[in-house]
């Protein structure tokens, strides 16, 4: 147990910091969900990251990474959030599909997709959920009918973040006639392909942050299947582990939010009851606890361990923490907290409100927290499935 960075790790932090200081855009970029322009501004940022070889630091160099360990990944993330750098428009690709492809992809697929993913040349969306298959993902009905060396895709996908402007999607389909966990395959398809229709869905504040995808006889080469035919469920579960567990939510984002909350508290301290200090301390403690747990988890992975159902404990913890953090900030802002960021007197409120709105989705996406609690109960604690 040595909770101290090595000189090399400190030097790495300095290197990231210097690059971020010199390259992070001043001020926020326009939303990547509302306009093509905002989306492309975020793609440009991904390209700039890639020029500095920062696209995905843990990936092998041949795929555009630096081949670094997970402790350095944590350090990179810490500096990324410290610098207030833009949200990764390609997070579905780099954090979810990328690691899955590393594990299940053919060499040809890795060489073809991963460098473009790291560079932001292909931005990815996830196409798993369907109107009739949410928490019960094995209920997907969209099909992939084999036709020689192609699949013909049909069906409807929903809740696909970034899908309105993204280039590619990775979708879960089933062989016609198959049921439940059998006969499923994970298939990559271009969102510009003939037969694909995308329709944006408005979030509760009216922002168009996700989309429905309709597939009508979409032909894709069989070589764009990730993992074995009929093994889609297994591949998806590996992706879900990344999604809930580690990559999608590094602790830095919550620690930096806690830091901003402390600053907000200090600015308003004279108007606030003494109990607010404890509330702020609580948020800081939870953000720190998440960071410490991930340092422990990354140390274990580096020593050859694996992540199992712990990824579900992570997902519950960060999603609840995110709401707490933003709710605490809104409570400090008091009656002004209801202002939208566009209101003339909103000041710095907008960011907190927007973060709060986004945090409300946390307990739902990447597998609802109720499903995560079932997973913990059954796979960690050993309670009976039925």
């Amino acid at each position, binding site marked *: *147990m040595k*909770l101290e960075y090595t000189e090399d790790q400190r030097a790495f932090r300095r290197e990231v910091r210097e690059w971020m200081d010199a390259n992070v855009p001043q001020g926020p970029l326009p939303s990547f969900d509302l306009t093509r322009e905002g989306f492309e501004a975020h793609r440009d940022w991904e390209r700039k990251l890639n020029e500095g070889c920062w696209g995905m630091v843990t990936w092998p160099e041949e795929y555009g990474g630096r081949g670094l360990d997970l402790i350095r990944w944590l350090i990179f993330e810490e500096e990324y959030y410290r610098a207030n750098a833009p949200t990764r428009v390609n997070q579905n690709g780099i954090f979810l599909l990328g690691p899955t492809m590393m594990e299940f992809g053919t060499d040809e697929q890795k060489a073809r997709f991963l460098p473009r993913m790291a560079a932001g040349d292909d931005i990815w969306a996830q196409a798993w959920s369907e109107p009739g298959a949410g928490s019960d993902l094995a209920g997907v009905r969209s099909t992939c009918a084999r036709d020689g060396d192609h699949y013909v895709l049909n069906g409807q996908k929903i809740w696909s973040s970034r899908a309105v402007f993204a280039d590619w999607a990775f979708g879960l389909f089933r062989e016609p006639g198959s049921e439940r966990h059998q006969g499923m395959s994970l298939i990559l398809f271009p969102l510009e392909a003939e037969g694909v229709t995308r329709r944006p869905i408005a979030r509760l504040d009216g922002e168009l942050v996700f989309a429905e995808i309709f597939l009508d006889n979409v032909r894709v080469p069989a070589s764009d299947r990730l993992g074995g035919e009929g093994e889609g469920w297994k591949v998806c579960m590996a992706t879900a582990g990344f999604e809930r567990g580690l990559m999608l939510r590094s602790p*830095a984002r919550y620690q930096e939010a806690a830091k901003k909350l402390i600053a907000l508290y*200090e600015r308003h301290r004279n108007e606030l009851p003494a109990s607010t200090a404890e509330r702020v301390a609580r948020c800081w403690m939870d953000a720190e606890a998440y960071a410490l747990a991930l340092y422990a988890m990354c*140390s*274990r992975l580096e020593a050859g361990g694996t992540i199992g159902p712990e990824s579900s*404990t992570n997902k519950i913890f960060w999603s609840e923490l995110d709401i707490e953090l933003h709710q605490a900030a809104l409570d400090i802002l008091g009656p002004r907290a209801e202002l939208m960021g566009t209101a003339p007197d909103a000041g710095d409120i907008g960011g907190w409100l927007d973060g709060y709105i986004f945090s409300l989705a946390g307990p739902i996406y990447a597998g609802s927290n109720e499903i995560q609690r079932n997973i913990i*109960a059954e796979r960690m604690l050993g*309670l009976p499935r039925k």
Partner: protein
Amino acid sequence: MQFAFTEEQLAITEAAREMLVDTCQPTDLRKMLEGGQALDEARWNTIRDMGLTGMCAPESAGGLGLGLIDLVGIAEAAGYVALPEPLIELAGVAVPLLTELEDNRGWLARTIGGEVVAVGHPANPFVADADIAGALLLDHGGEVHLVERDAVELVREEGFDPFRRLFRVDWTPDEATKVADGWSRTADRAALLAAAQMIGLGQRCIDMAVAYAKDRNQFGKPIGSYQAVKHLCSTAQVKIEFARPVVQAAAAELEMDSLPARARIAHAKIVAGEAADLAARTSVQVHGAMGFTWEVDVHFFLKRAHALRQAWGTPAEHVQTVIERIRTEPSGADCTFASELG
């Protein structure tokens, strides 16, 4: 950066844990209660012979020369079995303090040999295990006095946890009993080890709830198959999963003795206490009416958790330390570890 225990630490922890789990089952606790025993002599001799009492004493004094980071996993195991003997208080609190004294009057060697020195720190109004102690470390206006057992009068204060033998200590200080001007890091060490024990207590409560929920049938199937019961257990387990690394980090950073390091101990004590409290109440709930009885063993663990939550600084006191830290030291993603802060 290595957030993991060494092979040696894991080995000694596992050996101690196995011994404690083998020898200290709830049936053993009940026998001790019936016999009015304060400690189980066979187990206490094993603990001493394994070198656990002197783990944190220097090798020159006959100890193992280890630190609290080496003891923290054993403290968790002691919580897991609700150990009645004061191993953790002795090895992790009394021994480090005796080690720091200019003149320990022979008591360091005697504690390593298994004699008990009770600790009457000002954080706690009553002294635990004073009746089985050969000597007591007592507070007089911030000074530490080392007093032989026969120089004090004890008044038993019955507590909720029958194995926490609490006493009011009546005694008269004099120059000859004074051994130090202050308590040094005693409260920090004790708070940290209380937190570690609470992690173990919480885990035991969940494990008992899970075992019962698999076994108990209602509406024709095990109650553990119902989501309502699963979610109770999972929620408590999540609390434990995110308290344990805080306790471990606090142990690793304790020696730094800076405000960030002290705040991590406070943080650990708060969240471990909450995790143990939720786990204990969850366990009672899952056991239903049986959970509220003397017959089911959950109460042993609930009572210890209840006691340790308030001992060595209350949650309200510890949160003040955290508030001081966040208001006066830098926070953020690059400020997680005390070693990064001046």
